[in-house]
């Protein structure tokens, strides 16, 4: 088991290196730091001195990969690639283009993101599985047909509509909760409710449909026929046998998003004014802060790879037939 985990982690390293190289190429080779400086400082009228100063402040005045003017190890370490990309592996995100410490910002903004994403995830999962089971129970009947049509209709509505509609209905018309904002501690509860409701409802359509197909696939298997042949009631078959077995694909599909919950949701956070990582990223995109976007790309990929690792491990935990190779 341990050797398997170690091997998997070793397999993740080249992928992270690849991600790193891609972002490096995108941000520093395709576009030189001069271009970034010009974009940040404002187009054409900017002088070369200002560009040089901007680059020097952020350490972008070094050579790209190989510093010929330095000596020894410095040849490699005193470069943009080393100072901006290799350091990411140590989770040293450095400074944003506007001079703030990215690592500190991330550690602060992680928790509001989690406060929204975790309830959306858990409540949403429970609700979709329950509803999907009910729909699967009525399979082939009118309830099933109309539930699927409803799901398709719900999937076809833009997520922006759920957010705007929720804000308008609950926040503006009914005055139940504030439309947007955030607070610390328990006082944040009233700000969390609305994004969570909107997030859960927005995911219902596709979720129910997806889990329904999983359940239906299980229902067609031999062991279910055996269970029915034993004389078990339909509900016992569904809730005991089918649910337990369907949990394998559900669980393994779900585990991969677990680490990504830290990243938060871009759109939701931007709309509800939540100071999480999602709105952090959006702000950075709109302010064209390359350092933050680069860090978030790396962090996101890292979390995704952790998710893949957890998925593989969860297979072996829930399904004893899967052997580690």
């Amino acid at each position, binding site marked *: 088991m341990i050797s398997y985990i170690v091997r998997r982690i070793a397999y993740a390293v080249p992928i992270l290196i690849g991600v790193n190289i891609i972002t490096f190429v995108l941000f520093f080779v395709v576009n030189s730091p001069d271009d970034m400086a010009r974009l940040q400082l404002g187009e054409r009228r900017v002088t070369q001195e200002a560009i040089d100063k901007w680059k020097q402040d952020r350490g972008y005045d070094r050579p790209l990969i190989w510093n010929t003017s330095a000596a020894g190890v410095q040849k490699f370490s005193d470069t943009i690639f080393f100072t901006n990309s290799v350091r990411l592996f140590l989770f040293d995100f450095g400074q944003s283009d506007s001079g703030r410490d990215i690592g500190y910002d991330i550690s602060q903004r992680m928790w509001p993101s989690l406060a929204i994403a975790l309830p959306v995830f858990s409540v949403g999962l429970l609700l979709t599985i329950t509803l999907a089971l009910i729909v699967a129970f009525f399979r082939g009947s009118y309830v099933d047909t109309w539930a699927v049509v409803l799901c398709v209709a719900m999937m076809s509505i833009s997520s922006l509509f759920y957010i705007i509609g929720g804000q308008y209905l609950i926040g503006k018309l009914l005055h139940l909760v504030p439309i947007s904002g955030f607070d610390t501690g328990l006082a944040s509860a009233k700000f969390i409710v609305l994004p969570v409701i909107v997030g859960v409802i927005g995911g219902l359509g596709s979720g129910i449909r997806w889990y329904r197909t999983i359940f239906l696939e299980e229902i067609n298997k031999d062991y279910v026929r055996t269970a029915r042949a034993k004389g078990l009631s339909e509900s016992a078959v569904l809730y005991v046998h089918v649910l337990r077995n369907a949990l394998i694909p559900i669980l393994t599909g779900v585990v991969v998003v677990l680490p990504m919950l830290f990243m938060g949701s871009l759109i939701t956070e931007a709309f509800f004014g939540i100071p999480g990582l999602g709105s952090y990223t959006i702000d950075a995109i709109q302010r064209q802060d390359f350092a933050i976007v680069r860090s978030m790309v790396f962090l*996101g990929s890292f979390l995704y790879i952790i998710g893949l690792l957890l998925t593989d491990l969860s297979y072996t935990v829930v399904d004893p037939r899967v052997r580690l190779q």
Partner: protein
Amino acid sequence: MRFTLFATDALFFSLIFVAIGYFVYASKREHLRAPWREVTKNSLAMAAATVLASFLIIAILDSIHFFPRLEQVDGDQGQVHYASEVISMFDLLAGPVREQVEKTYSAPFAIHAFSKETIELEDGSSVRDYPRLQYGGAHLTDVRERAPDVTRRALGGVIGALIAWFCGVSMMLIWVGRKTACGYRAHLFAMLRNENRGPARTLLVATASIAVVIGVCAALAPYYHIFGTDKVGTDVLYQSLKSIRTGLIIGTLTTLVMLPFAILLGVSAGYFRGWIDDVIQYLYTTLSSIPGVLLIASAALLLEVYMSKHADEFTSLVARADLRLLALCVILGITSWTGLCRLLRGETMKLREIDFVEAARAFGVGHTTIIVRHMVPNIMHIVMISIVLDFSGLVLAEAVLSYINIGVDPSMESWGNMINSARLELAREPIVWWSLLAALAFMFVLVLAANLFADAVRDAFDPRLRVIS
């Protein structure tokens, strides 16, 4: 007029030709015709297809761009001048709706402006009141005339549409009757009794409803702003219709961009195995581990830099916006080929162990021939399913991306941009809801139709589902 072809137009048309070519090819082969026949039997899917077809027609009309010829000026004989602004065939058809620009917001069917202004009266004094719109309901003298006028015009539109629809259907019936030599009456009765169990009745209802919608819009749009006007006074209905092209182009061109990568890499990874497999697997795992939105955002940032650096290469704002749309399709394609690639790799791995491939290899058939003749045709159903399934997701993604300013160019009509600009309008009192609602409604109709159609295609093409049911 002088025609001009933007990059996205060219690709869009070539895609349509490829699609037509595919249908001609498929109609001659029973194994490809059978699943499509299955799709045509599904009446819900056919209704959806009718809606999609009407959207497609608008998008095609909107993709034929040209510089209109200007009026002859006395003095320079024989010299033909063209306008500097590119318009499309659709703009030409929309004619008055495009040109009737108000000053600023106005509600649907309004005849007065949205905000108060100081109006000079004839006797010299001035009052603050809602001024009349320049075009919306300009032929009315009083707001009380509006309801009967709207009803009358709408009714006229409905009747006109139904007559046109009836003529169309009769001509179709007569044509079919001539062709099959058993008379149109037999076909008519067969259809009314629903004898062939086909989607004929659904199709009739669907085309009739679309005709009615078009008729009503055509009857009312020149006299009223059906969906109101936006901040700069453009008709919202016109904007939403123009956005159809943007949505369809993103939904289809993205797939076109990613298909070659996905098929080539997926099939060769599954077929050759070994180090090729390792490299390709590494490639797509790496790319797919970068969160899609962030990759798109970084690419969009870089595009911004590129465009500001090469600002003089773009002849016009429209050309610039068009290039940005194409770039967005490419970026979306690069982020979305990995899923299909993984699927194709798995399927090819299964296929290469099957006897007919082994037989081909034993006969000494080369790798290229095996891949082209035996592998690719057998994975096409997966490709087909993923094309139709991806479409709706891409249309929805466009709105979200435009909302965070990394989507299409702000000057281009798109539902995302409409929603984006509605952000501030919602905070106004009374709120400006029409632009937002129109964008969401159009998007909903397109995506719902695409989803329903995609489901039918998937059910018909997926052999695994056929076994289960």
